[in-house]
């Protein structure tokens, strides 16, 4: 008996030690449950981060574009007369965002925004000899744009250099046109404007469609080709909290007067799928947690029955109901805590094994899982709390035992 330990701790630890096999199997049961929760949480976070990273690494989180052009009939309706006019939707020309420099400045100053990049984009035809392909031309300020889409990381050949006569194209487009780094291609737009550019780099965006379509040129090259001198067709931005992108987009729309599309709106199916996954995962974790709590409660109920004689004796010797209650609550909490330590080890082992066993064809991990200390801490806290709550009913039962009945057994 250690002097600094109160009676409740001494009794709880002795009772747990006495029922060694029961304690160990309960701890293992809790451990497996906690391990599953930890692994599932890490897997969910890893998978989510992986999907989001793959999707968002090639696109901006929010895109500011000029408000759509609308046709407004000039005739004023007479009071009391309803007009059934059919107003044709006007064609949407490539237009510049009005006062885009001011908007870039304002948006860049917002703390939620990580990077801002203006862009002049439009459709074009890429041509080399007899081969032609329709492409998307994105004119960007390289320094700013690479902070939004890390193109240098996706370069598979050449350099991510975007001078006035340079062009970076998707690997599949290069293959379709039969060009290599250093070759020249002609890029022309519908208006007939065109330029001959040197391929400085080939990028792999991780998507065949994008690799066949995407071309990157310097901002002023695109401006000249699209007839947008001094203008931009969109402003791309990335934010710190990707899940708050839609909310910020709405604020920006109100602030700047231009249209703001967040990745959540443009990838709504993906967003819904991620959300559904989060809900399913949360439900699974909740039910595993519930199973743990019932497991602890069941073990302690049996323990109260087994220990009823001891409870009666302790009560006969002057032990109060509160002391008995605390002894069993502590057992629940200790079981939860020890089980969570076992579970943390199981969870960590599963996470490490995942990294070793589940790999991409190229040998890199399918997606990395983090050994996040806060996850382990939260699991330990939750398991301890579950143990405490689960122990409440059996503890109350023990505390309420009639000593006479308990001793008689």
């Amino acid at each position, binding site marked *: *008996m250690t002097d*600094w330990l109160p009676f409740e701790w001494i009794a709880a630890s002795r*009772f747990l030690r*006495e029922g060694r096999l029961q304690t160990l199997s309960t701890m293992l049961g809790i451990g497996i449950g906690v391990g599953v929760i930890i692994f599932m949480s890490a897997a969910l976070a890893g998978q989510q981060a992986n999907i989001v990273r793959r999707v968002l690494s090639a696109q901006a989180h929010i895109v500011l574009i000029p408000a759509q052009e609308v046709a407004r009939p000039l005739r004023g309706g007479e009071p009391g007369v309803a007009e059934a006019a059919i107003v044709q939707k006007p064609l949407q020309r490539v237009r510049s965002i009005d006062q885009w420099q001011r908007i870039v400045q304002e948006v860049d100053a917002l703390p939620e925004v990580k990077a801002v990049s203006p862009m002049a984009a439009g459709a074009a035809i890429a041509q080399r000899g007899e081969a032609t392909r329709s492409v998307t031309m994105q004119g960007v300020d390289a320094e700013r744009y690479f902070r939004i889409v890390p193109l240098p990381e996706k370069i598979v050949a050449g350099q991510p250099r975007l001078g006035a006569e340079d062009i970076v194209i998707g690997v599949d487009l290069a293959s379709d046109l039969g060009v290599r780094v250093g070759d020249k291609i002609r890029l022309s737009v519908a208006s007939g404007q065109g330029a001959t550019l040197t391929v400085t780099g080939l990028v792999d965006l991780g998507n065949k469609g994008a690799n066949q379509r995407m071309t990157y040129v310097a901002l002023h090259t695109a401006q000249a080709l699209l007839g947008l001198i001094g203008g931009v067709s969109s402003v791309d931005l990335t934010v710190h909290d990707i899940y708050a992108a839609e909310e910020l987009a709405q604020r920006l729309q109100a602030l700047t007067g231009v249209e703001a599309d967040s990745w959540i709106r443009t990838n709504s199916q993906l967003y819904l799928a991620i959300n559904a996954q989060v809900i399913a995962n949360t439900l699974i974790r909740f039910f595993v947690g519930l199973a743990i709590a019932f497991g602890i409660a069941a073990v302690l109920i049996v323990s109260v029955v087994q220990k009823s004689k001891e409870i009666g*004796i*302790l009560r*006969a*010797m002057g032990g*109060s109901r509160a002391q008995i209650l605390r002894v069993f609550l502590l057992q629940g909490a200790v079981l939860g805590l020890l089980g969570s330590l076992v579970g943390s080890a199981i969870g960590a082992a599963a996470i490490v094994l995942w990294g070793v066993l589940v790999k991409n064809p190229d040998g890199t991990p399918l997606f990395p899982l983090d050994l996040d200390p806060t996850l382990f801490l939260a699991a330990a806290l939750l398991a301890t709390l579950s143990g405490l709550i689960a122990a409440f009913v059996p503890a109350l039962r023990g505390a309420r035992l009639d000593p006479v009945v308990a*001793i008689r057994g």
Partner: protein
Amino acid sequence: MAEPVVALQGVRKSYNLGMPNEAEVLHGVDLVIEPGEFCALMGPSGSGKSTLLNIIGLLDRPSSGQLAIAGNLTSGLDDKAITRLRGHAIGFVFQYHHLIPAFSARENVMMPMLLERGRPDAAMRGRADELLASVGLTSWRDNLATNLSGGQQQRVAVARALAMKPALLLADEPTGNLDTQSAQAVFDLMRDVNRTQGTTVLIVTHNRTLADQCGRIVQIVDGRVTRGWSRPESCLMSVKASR
């Protein structure tokens, strides 16, 4: 004159009160036990001995009537106060020793003090060692309760019952589970405690030989105390048991 250690007046105990199967097991018991008495409580099985002992030991409450332990009238006390009084004034020795198996002999003896004070200390250990020495178990003090013989366990139980220096030692057939030699040894131990420390002892027993060595035998039949007399050589009080 000192206050009686136990005073019962018109104590009744019914089970299943208010139900069709209500059964009264004690029918208005009056009994006084004065400080320093060594009493045996005898009676056939089902006569209400254990119920009476549990009521005197504050483990159970009477359905009606008055009970005072060491001068404290118990009828107005709440559960907390009853627990405190039980812890301070009464020591129990049960038929099946009822030591806590997860603890050593010494820790079992320390248990009533630990329950009262919350944390173990040197004084508690000292008192436990002293008591274990008095029952001849010093060298067994670190053994788990389960590693002791029946007689040794019962002696530890007596030591534990005396830990809080109680005014009253209640023993429910403490020798019923022991061989003759061990039974006599445990009985002598309690007798000795009664003589040397003046602790009042009430012992439930079926053993006539042991009962005859007590200062007074209280007989209970069908929930009524039918006899309570003192042996002349050890009578310490006037008997007020009802008939």
